[in-house]
């Protein structure tokens, strides 16, 4: 296995005996690919991410993660008003000895990473004063300084407006294609997965799941089972580009509206 690859097989987890959140999951992603996790609320997406991260021990099965992992949590709140630079600098934790402090070289790296995500001018801005999209970017920068091979994101596009959703997806794409990082992210939006991911894992509950290439997995029948909602694959032309996407079709029942 190369650095940056990861795979799991026979993976299962249960908090209570014989109440499997998921079971027998299997997947393999190689360096530079993007894996999207999809599933309804409470299906164990965060649990799976924690296991891949090594923060939680799986009940059964094996996980092999090859390389450094960086994590971007979902709702990021910090108790103290650290500056953006302080936050990015924390990515150097693995490279800085236990009893030593980060050097000026580390600080320079942090600043460069901020530059790369286009936030160099905001280096000294308190983290909690930044917008949601900017915060995500700061955490991306932190993953960059950590020199991580694998990036795990927990619902990076939730709670953002459309413009910022697009910016984050662009960044996910860039990190995978240009920085050659392996990216795993969970999302509630199948069209986000469709837009950037190479592989998708649909968590249907228990040992029921669908995994594989996006084209094969994100099909209408699977998605209907997942969300109990029709999703339509649409293709059209926009500014002379062929575009293909998934559109969820919401159908509030008419008799409800009458009542």
């Amino acid at each position: 296995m190369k650095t940056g690859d990861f795979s799991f097989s026979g993976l299962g987890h249960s908090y209570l005996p014989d109440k499997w959140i998921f079971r027998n999951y299997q997947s393999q992603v190689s360096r530079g690919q993007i894996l999207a996790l999809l599933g309804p609320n409470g299906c164990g997406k965060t649990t799976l991410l924690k296991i891949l991260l090594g923060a939680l021990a799986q009940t059964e099965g094996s996980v092999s993660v090859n390389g450094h992992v960086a994590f971007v949590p979902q709702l990021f709140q910090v108790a103290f008003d650290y500056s953006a630079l302080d936050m990015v600098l924390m990515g150097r934790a693995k490279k800085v000895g236990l009893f030593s402090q980060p050097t000026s070289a580390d600080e320079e790296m942090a600043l460069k990473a901020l530059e790369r995500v286009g936030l160099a001018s905001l280096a000294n801005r308190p983290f909690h004063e930044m917008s949601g999209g900017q915060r995500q970017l700061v955490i991306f920068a932190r993953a960059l300084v950590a020199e991580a091979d694998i990036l795990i994101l927990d619902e990076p596009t939730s709670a953002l407006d459309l413009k910022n959703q697009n910016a984050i997806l662009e960044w996910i794409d860039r990190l995978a294609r240009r920085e050659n990082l392996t990216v795993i992210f969970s999302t509630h939006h199948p069209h986000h997965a469709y837009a950037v991911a190479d592989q998708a894992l649909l968590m249907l509950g228990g040992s029921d799941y669908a995994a594989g290439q996006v084209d094969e997995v994100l099909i209408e029948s699977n998605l209907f089972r997942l969300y109990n909602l029709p999703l339509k694959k649409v293709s059209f032309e926009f500014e002379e580009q062929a575009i293909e996407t998934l559109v969820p079709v919401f159908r509030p029942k008419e008799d409800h509206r009458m009542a």
Partner: protein
Amino acid sequence: MIEAYFKNIVPLFHRTQRFLDQRSWAWPWLLALVVVVAVMGSMFVGAYPMPLRRPLDILLDIILPFSWVDSPAWDLREITVVTLIRPPRIMVAVFAGITLGMSGTALQGMYRNPLVGPDLIGVSSGAAFGGALAYKLALPTLGIVTLASIGGVGAMLCTLFLARIVGGKSDGLPLILAGFFVGAFFMACVGLILHIGGGYAGPNLVYWLLGTFRGADPTKAWTIILTTTAGGILLMALRWRLNLLSLGDLDAKSLGLDVGTLRWILILVVSIMVAVQVAVSGVVGWVGLIIPHCARMLVGPDHRRLMPVSALLGCLLVLGLDNLTRTVIWSEIPVGVLSGFLGTPFICFLFWKCRSRGWS
């Protein structure tokens, strides 16, 4: 005229502040300088009446290889005061302040909660219980320190255990409540010990409990100097890791931190430091809670600068309070009482200002 005065002063103030803010290490060095001056200045003040110059003369006469004053005008008492009474007391105050400032900062960072402090989390009460027990058994200073340390660590463990079984991962309100309960329990135990001592036979014990630097001797001074130095070096070395810890368990783990080990090291170091402080100088409340806030106002939340600044500020505050009790205020009011009087309104003010943002 007052307006003109402000016109001059305010920009100067802002300029100074900007100067200090731009150079990240200006504040710590400035404070260190102030501390040195304060320590030296403290030698000249005290309850014992003597001319202001006298301590300087005596010290120089002792330190310098030749005699500084031809015909010494001082008597043996003054020499005793200057060489044997004031230095240990000042040292104990200095290091107690450092201990409280640093341990408060470490606890607040570690628990991502600006409301914890050695007193609110039960360490001080536990240490007071151990110390009171040792006093009652008439143990020597070393025995007091040992028992106080055991009490402090034990109380801290009780608090953590309770907060853990109640709140799971959350370190907010459960921790504070658990600390409050455990602290109250140990304080009741202290009350029991006071009672067993035969009513009010132990005014010294009561006085010690209220927090005082009176009766500091070289043994006590060396005890706290050694522990605080050792613990302080460890905390200083780990101070950047506190930034990481303050992000929360999951995030800190994902950044490659051994959260469990680090937290245990910090808890142990902080408990022992505070317990030794309580053993030599009683419960000096609220300093450990408010000093990190003041330091954060000065240099921001980055623990790399916060830790030294907290240490120095704590040292200044405690030394200042002790000097106040030694000179201005009659008959040596306990420092703990004074710090409580100062600390609680201050924390109320902070509470109001912050509108409880990030307090839970």
